[in-house]
């Protein structure tokens, strides 16, 4: 396995948290991992992205120019990184905030209404976890349990009560992409 992921969105959408949670979970499950954040002049609301690699073999380059999966949380991110998805790779689009369809026909594209789903589970701020779940559903790179273990550490006792809603968001994300995949396979 060699998962090469680009996660991109607005600063504040939880892009870095998704990335860090994934690599921590991967590391705990014995995988080789690396996390490379974009950095720049510090600004809330600016664009934010990161490169995540989860692999069986030791990682050489930590930079992801060609991704097995791109997760686009907003429109500018889709415009910028759509072409970076490798042929046969996956593109996860937060369709709550992105109004256009992908132009690629050589990749798997999933439309995840992350904000709506987050609202459904009762906490709009779990939209990033819906996207994280969607990625797990597509790739199986890490287990939900490993992710939850790490969120538990990140949240600490003070925010431990938020764990169930985050788990629900992740599971809904997984469900969302699996339904779309099943539908696509049926269509073939």
């Amino acid at each position, binding site marked *: 396995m060699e998962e090469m992921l680009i996660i991109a969105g607005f600063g504040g959408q939880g892009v870095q948290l998704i990335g860090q949670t994934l690599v921590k979970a991967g590391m705990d499950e014995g995988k080789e*991992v690396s996390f490379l954040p974009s950095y720049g002049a510090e600004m809330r609301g600016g664009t934010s992205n990161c490169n995540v690699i989860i692999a069986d073999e030791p990682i050489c380059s930590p930079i992801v*120019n060609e991704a097995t999966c791109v997760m686009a949380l907003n429109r500018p991110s889709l415009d910028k990184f759509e072409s970076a998805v490798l042929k046969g790779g996956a593109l996860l689009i937060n369709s709550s905030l992105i109004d256009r369809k992908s132009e690629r026909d050589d990749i798997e594209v999933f439309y995840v209404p992350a904000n709506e789903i987050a609202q459904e589970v009762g906490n709009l701020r779990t939209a990033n976890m819906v996207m994280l779940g969607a990625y797990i559903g597509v790739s199986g790179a890490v287990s939900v349990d490993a992710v939850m273990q790490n969120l538990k550490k990140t949240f600490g006792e003070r925010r431990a009560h938020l764990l169930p809603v985050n788990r629900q968001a992740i599971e809904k994300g997984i469900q969302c992409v699996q339904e779309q995949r099943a539908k696509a396979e049926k269509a073939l």
Partner: protein
Amino acid sequence: MAKILMKGNEAIAEAAIKVGCRFFFGYPITPQNQIPEYMSKRMPQVGGCFLQAESEVSAINMVYGASGAGARVMTSSSSPGISLKQEGISYAVGAELPLVVVNMVRGGPGLGSIQPAQSDYFQATRGGGHGDYRLPVFAPASVQEAVELMAVAFDVADRYRNPVMLLGDGMLGQIMEPVEMIEERKEPLPKKPWASGVPEKEGRSIINSLYINPDECEQHNYKLERKYQEITKNEVRVETIGCEDADVLLVAYGTMARICQRAARDAKKELGLNVGLVRPITLWPYPYEQLAKCAAQASVKHVLCVEMSTGQMVDDVRLAVSDMKPVSFYGRPGGMVPTVKDILAKLSSIKEGM
């Protein structure tokens, strides 16, 4: 020890603390801010001292004072700040003071960009400030290696009483990787009987780089030079990957070497080319002999140096390879990072010409 996920900058700071560095003087500059930030949190916990100086010039001179006073001490910065520190580094060399400087290189010249670059190679390996001197320069390619080299850097600085530089870049500073943190140093730090104010000192300590009589200054320079010959003999470090019977050698250091390692692997698959990688870990002293030996193999037809610059280390590659084999260069400056694809394209054109 279990692996933990750490940002390069933070891991470097923690490693310094692990090996007994208790003094840090610095000034904020991107992309190395997590080093002073981490130090400001950790130093009070271990009974050390973090002080944010009014400038990089002041910071390096505080380091000079602390080192002269016998402490294990460091500073960190990024390219423009390292230029400002050069005065102090030169004085520390002249006064033979051990200290460690971390440079997380960004694009230059001037204010440049804040993205990763390798454009400070000449500055790092040719002295950097005024005068006839060198610094041992360590160039880690991963967070794990950075942590291990911090321990080596402090020891080499103390052993030869010379400043040492750890040369990284924005990528190494910002990346998070699993790292097995080095153990806490158990043995006491080396005694410094030459230092000011220490209990073990022998007579009056004078920390100075002024030799007003040129014949004395000449002798002092020869003394430094003998030290540099010793360092050259003892401290060269290099990694070679898949160089045996390679058709082409890639030469790269630091994070660039990791991208080249990937390109070497893909070149076998995509171009049917055996590509070896020579990765200097010490940039000074430079692994001339090791590189020459690899290049001398009959199988090797070409040597390609790849850097995040318009070509600086390539000068040393040419010195090593001489006219044995053709040497070419590929690089991107200013904070742009050559991709695996770029390097494969270059290798492909080299293959055509072979």
